[in-house]
């Protein structure tokens, strides 16, 4: 069973967020990057669990320039067998999906896992697009996956409960919390990652359909106004005249 896991680069959760180029680009200066946690903790680790249970190979794929190599090496240290980097800027989700779909088709992957979204752009589109492009069913935001032979049983949280689905054959799935537990690379993994293959390939076709007009930070939190507990009248007046909510 060969599994393809899509990984992307996200700023560390403690990074300061700022923009450059007139608000059209994320300012990477001084930012530490990590493997997008949904990709790493859930998609990649689930793929490793499947491999450990039934054999096969886990390939991680990432679209981006050489600055993605550290997160790819980390994925190899966590346990992926090999890695592919499509050497192109990850301009939009469709472009990235096209690159990954092309690679998956060419190399006959029919189980493809992604995280449910990236923690920087929160698009959540990639899995669905890949599924469409490779012609496989798609399950979004799955929290559990069991594989017996060709039969996959997949669970996902829905409003007020959960949904259990079965798929016979290949599929694309985006993984959410619950799918697996984070694995911290150990020294054996880090040493093994030194000699695992990281193949850099050129982009194959594909185009971007969207471009960023600008990014904006959320408005700064307004100052908190304290009103004496004795003074309910003033509170009501302010809610009416200033906050305009009553």
């Amino acid at each position, binding site marked *: 069973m060969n599994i393809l896991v899509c990984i992307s680069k996200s700023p560390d959760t*403690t990074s300061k967020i700022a923009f450059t180029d007139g608000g059209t680009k994320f300012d990477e200066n001084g930012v530490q990057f990590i493997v997008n946690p949904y990709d790493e903790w859930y998609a990649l680790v689930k793929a490793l669990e499947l491999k450990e249970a039934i054999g096969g190979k886990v390939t991680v794929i990432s679209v981006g320039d050489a600055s993605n190599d550290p997160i790819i*090496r*980390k994925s190899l240290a966590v346990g992926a067998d090999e890695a592919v980097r499509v050497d192109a800027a990850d301009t939009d989700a469709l472009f990235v999906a096209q690159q990954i779909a092309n690679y998956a088709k060419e190399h006959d992957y029919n189980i493809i896992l992604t995280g449910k979204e990236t923690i920087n752009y929160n698009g959540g589109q990639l899995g669905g697009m890949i599924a469409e492009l490779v012609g496989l069913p798609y399950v979004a935001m799955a929290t559990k996956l069991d594989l017996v032979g060709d039969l996959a049983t997949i669970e996902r949280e829905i409003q007020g409960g959960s949904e259990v689905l079965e798929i016979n054959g290949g599929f694309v799935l985006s993984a959410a919390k619950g799918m697996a537990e984070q694995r*911290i*690379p*150990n*020294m054996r993994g*880090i040493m093994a*990652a030194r000699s695992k293959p990281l193949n850099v390939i050129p982009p194959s076709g594909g185009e971007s359909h969207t471009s960023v007009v600008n990014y904006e930070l959320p408005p700064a939190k307004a100052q908190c106004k304290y009103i004496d507990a004795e003074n309910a009248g003033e509170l009501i007046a302010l809610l009416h005249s200033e906050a305009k909510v009553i």
Partner: protein
Amino acid sequence: MRTDQYTGHDYYNMDDLLTDEHKLVRDSARAWIKKEVSPIIEDAFEKGSFPKHLIPGLGEIGAFGPYIPEQYGGPGLDQISYGLLMQELERCDSGLRSTSSVQSSLVMYPIWKYGNEEQRMKYLPKLATGEFVGCFGLTEPDHGSDPGGMTTNFKDKGDHYLLNGAKMWISNSPFADIAVVWAKNEAGRIHGLIVERGMEGFTTPTTHGKWSLRASDTGELVFDNVKVPKANLLPNKSGLGAPLGCLDSARYGIAWGAIGAALDCYDSALRYSKERIQFGRPIAGFQLQQKKLAEMITEITKAQMLTLRLGQLKNEDKATSGQISMAKRNNVDMAIKIAREARQMHGGMGITNEYPIMRHMMNLESVITYEGTHDIHLLITGLDITGENAFK
């Protein structure tokens, strides 16, 4: 204890000078420590015993003999990775780092450098995983800063050596499987011997009542006519230079470790001062508190640069004992001062084990004493720059 919210501080973008593997080693160690050690370290410190269940995990993150070549079961990392691992360990607790320092630089290093192939193959792979834990016996009750005066000795009895004497203040001794012991032969020359637990006449009483390094076990090594097989003598180096070579390696790791302790104190003080409101504003807004914080990060940054350069020299095998002494002395002193200032910034809360500060502060009293006291390192630098020996 509260959840471990530590994040690293890198004011001069020193990370740009590290390789991806350096960062992977460091960040993986940090993640493991936060998951496995931070939740239990206060308890271990309070109980006064080393949490032995962590030993296999320490082996897995590469904390035992990071630079030992792969052929002997080590990870074959460079000296900067070794330093970063020690920094992460001591960021959590100096005792945790001590256990790893001893295993790496004082037990594995001499077996690797001064041992023969048979000894390397017999001990190093098991020490790397933590299946064996080792200790290092140099200090004696009457010979601390002056180890050359040691009286522990061994006599050649034909098919074995007969070892007599006692060592004191030995980290890991109470549970160690093996001890690298420094003793004089009949001609008064210092040699290293590997003594194994279970050899008749060899005991390891625990030292009680420590106010420092409580999460590390310390004890004595007592040799009462211990028969040591001749195959257990480290053949490739003798004289005081042999144990001092080990100390150079360990002191280098301590220089990094101390930065870790300082970073943890600074990190906690910075966060606390932004959250703690007095006189209607965060205490971080007061000039007196800012002076403390600004001076802390300045001193940490200086130490980081000094130590990274030392690591580069170590990688090229060019670091001198004098340079290592300077870094150990400077960094431990820096850390202990930061711990004291950080403690004050936490007010009363800094007294409790809700915060790691007092633990670091107490631990660092050992760190500033062992592996050459603060004053002894000053004398080493003094001797190095003047050529005048002020020891005796």
